[in-house]
């Protein structure tokens, strides 16, 4: 059975702080993809990044960076110098035939 856990339910930071969202994916599969989606207050779902289980290198894209540690099944997402527009719910989603979503982490960035 697969299980995805988003460690934080809510995080509140002040603008310009760095913030890390943690996701743990428990599976017997040896190869898989993990996706992160953002859901801003307007409600749409926006794809952010995909990572595969082969690649444990950090990836950086602008203010976003991702770290995957296969040994602990942890797939973490960091926003550097957070901005108010980053306020949203972030979902970790393992990708398979039946894509499952974590419960989400609600991020509040205060000015």
């Amino acid at each position: 059975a697969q299980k995805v856990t988003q460690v934080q339910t809510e995080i509140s930071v002040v603008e310009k702080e760095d913030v890390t969202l943690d996701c743990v994916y428990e599976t017997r599969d040896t190869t898989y993809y993990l996706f992160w989606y953002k859901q801003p207050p307007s409600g749409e779902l926006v794809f952010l990044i995909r990572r595969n289980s082969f690649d444990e290198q950090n990836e950086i894209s602008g203010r976003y960076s991702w770290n995957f540690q296969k040994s602990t099944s942890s797939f973490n997402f960091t926003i550097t110098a957070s901005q108010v527009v980053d306020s949203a719910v972030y979902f970790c989603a393992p990708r398979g035939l039946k894509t499952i979503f974590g419960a989400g982490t609600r991020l509040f960035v205060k000015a």
Partner: protein
Amino acid sequence: NAGVTQTPKFRILKIGQSMTLQCAQDMNHNYMYWYRQDPGMGLKLIYYSVGAGITDKGEVPNGYNVSRSTTEDFPLRLELAAPSQTSVYFCASSYLSGQGAEAFFGQGTRLTVV
């Protein structure tokens, strides 16, 4: 390019009524999905389809039916609406599954059953 289009955007149903949520994609994607998102919660998979004529149940299929007669369309049917079906419904599609293709989502349908 329209992507994934859902209609209607909002709907209020009375208990026991039925309705169909429409979903269409113009990206020639094989895979299509229906999710529901209850307030403050994550997304739960209702049904999915890997191609025209093929559908299968997800995590929460009870109370719903789907069909996939064409690649483009994947309607979701509620036969006897219940208050527990009050939710936001998202349709999604992807080119491949399990191979790293991201899902593209519609804007959602907000359904209230009273």
